[in-house]
């Protein structure tokens, strides 16, 4: 058998050019499969960890996914606001540790503006309960003096090239498709000063401009029903003299003293009589949401599975095509005492070795790309690619490529077996 393996190696080396190409295509397919799966699992974990440490999100009654979409991902808009009275009622529940109200609806050059309280920066967390961190400056003060202060998400600051102390103007509503080039700023009369920039999180926080709830009130003093009141302008300094406590907010983030009470509080919110409310568990709703947006990612994986299939088919095609030329070689081996089983083993071994080498090369390439591109992807997209040991799923993919390659190599092996039986000593070519 060792004699046969040596011959198999020499024979393969003799056709190294072709086999190297096949090996390369298997390596690419494997790298694609493993890389995509790594990306998929890491995107999934970034996605489902967009919020952590928040036990409930409470908003006007709508669908849970809808509430998550606007409260966390700033996509779409709220069907209704909730009153501050309701927020206070929730905050008064004995199981509730903290509440952070949020108000959405304005934007800055296509980036959503989030009105909230200073507690947002201490209570909001993402990933594995990682708190928000400031890379520059400080959080907004939340006082009348610091009324027009803004804290930028990492992406906003990067994309627009903003620095501390810069003045920015907000727009009313999310201008669809306006993007960063929309200079239309209907709240330009009350400019904000950038006082802080947050570290990148890989969550929607990066795309958000954070201001205080009072600031949201202030810029809407001279507005009614979504439009400026004709003939009424209130100067920025003048606005400080008004009562800026909001009467309505979009939603409220709720933290509990003990997670055990989460369903109690959820029912308490649902039974709130003053107005119809909905409380969702972020983890559950994010999983539901992923089930919707995860479809595309599964299609991608299916595509790379097809790529793997094609490269294995090319392995079979290349070995089969070469078989006719090798019939004499096989006849020589038969004459010196190799059996048809040996020839089957010879060709199967060759295919298996090419597949193994290709798959290993592909796995190494995938790991290399994750290592090399990891920091860049984190910087650019906020997705942490883990250069960790392969997951069970990735081992399974790797095993599937190997198994499929070995099975595919049996096809030419079986053909050689049949040919050598039919040929006898002299190949009829």
């Amino acid at each position, binding site marked *: 058998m060792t004699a046969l393996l040596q011959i198999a190696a020499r024979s393969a080396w003799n056709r190294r050019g072709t086999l190297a190409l096949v090996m390369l295509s298997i390596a690419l397919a494997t790298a694609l499969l493993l890389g995509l799966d790594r990306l998929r699992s890491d995107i999934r974990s970034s996605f489902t960890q967009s919020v952590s440490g928040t036990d409930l999100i409470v908003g006007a009654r709508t669908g849970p996914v809808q509430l998550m979409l606007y409260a966390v991902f700033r996509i779409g808009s709220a069907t209704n606001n909730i009153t501050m009275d309701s927020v206070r009622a929730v905050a008064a529940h004995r199981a509730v540790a903290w509440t952070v109200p949020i108000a959405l609806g304005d934007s800055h050059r296509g980036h959503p503006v989030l009105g909230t309280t200073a507690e947002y920066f201490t209570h909001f967390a993402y990933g594995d309960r990682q708190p928000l961190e400031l890379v520059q400056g400080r959080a907004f003060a939340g006082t009348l003096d610091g009324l027009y202060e803004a804290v930028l998400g990492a992406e906003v600051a990067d994309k627009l090239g903003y620095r501390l102390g810069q003045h920015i103007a907000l727009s009313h509503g999310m201008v669809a498709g306006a993007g960063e080039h929309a200079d239309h700023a209907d709240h330009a009369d009350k400019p904000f000063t950038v006082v802080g920039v947050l570290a990148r999180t890989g969550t929607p926080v990066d795309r958000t401009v954070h201001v205080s709830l009072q600031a949201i009130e202030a810029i809407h003093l001279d507005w009614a029903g979504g439009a400026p009141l004709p003939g009424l302008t209130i100067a920025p300094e003048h606005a400080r003299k008004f009562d800026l406590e909001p009467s309505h907010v979009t939603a409220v983030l709720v933290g509990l003293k003990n997670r055990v009470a989460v369903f109690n509080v959820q029912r308490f919110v649902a039974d709130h009589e003053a107005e119809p409310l909905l409380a969702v568990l972020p983890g559950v709703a994010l999983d539901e949401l992923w089930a919707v947006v995860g479809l595309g990612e599964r299609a991608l994986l299916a595509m790379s599975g097809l790529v793997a299939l094609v490269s294995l088919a090319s392995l079979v095609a290349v070995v089969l095509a070469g078989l006719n030329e090798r019939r004499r070689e096989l006849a020589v081996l038969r004459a010196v*005492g190799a059996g048809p089983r040996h020839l089957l083993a010879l060709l199967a071994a060759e295919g298996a070795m090419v597949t193994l080498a290709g798959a290993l090369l592909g796995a190494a390439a995938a790991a290399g790309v994750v290592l090399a591109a990891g920091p860049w992807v984190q910087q650019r997209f906020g997705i942490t690619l883990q250069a960790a040991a392969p997951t069970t799923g990735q081992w399974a993919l790797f095993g599937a490529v190997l198994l499929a390659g070995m099975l595919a190599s049996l096809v030419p092996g079986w053909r050689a077996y049949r040919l050598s039986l039919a040929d006898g000593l002299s190949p009829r070519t």
Partner: protein
Amino acid sequence: MLSIRELQYAWPGASGPCLEIERLDIAAGRTVFLHGPSGCGKSTLLGLMAGVLVARKGRVDLLGQDWAALRGGARDARRAEHVGVIFQQFNLLPYVSVLDNVLLPCRFSAARSRRCADGPVAAAHALLQRVALPPSLWPRRADALSVGQQQRVAAARALIGRPELVIADEPTSALDAGLRDDFMRLLLDECRAGGSTLVFVSHDDRLALHFDERLSLPALNRAPS
């Protein structure tokens, strides 16, 4: 040495047998010339003698053992041990050195190895020298040699470890007249020296006078052609 009784062989899918031989005996150490026109079943008969093909009817015994009575693996091992084969052309593995080509049978059969008195490598050297291949060619790839040189390497491979039966299937048809006569002399001398029985197939009747026995396959074969 080799005996055939009541043999009938049909290729798979063929309507009738292509070979039907009632009786054929070849004694040990003889050199036999088997001739007949192309397509009369010479190569098929050689395949049956070497145990590569197996007859459904009748017996083909080599050294008293019916090939058909052995299982596939045992047949292959027995062939490696007792039979050397030379083809018309393309005898060698092109990607292996000349020396390794000669050593191939010893890799598949320990018995052939053991029969080389000073070890397979020494035996291969001696054989290559006797077939007049200079040592400078031994480490070369087999496909770097001329056709005549390749046939001589094939003879050395068939003869290493002194197999009881050497089968040659028109080994001279790709050689010109001068090379052919040299090759014939060399092959016959080496078979006689090693005590191997030689069954030599050709359609070239001029070669017949070199041999102890001459057999005409059309005369032996009773299958309707």
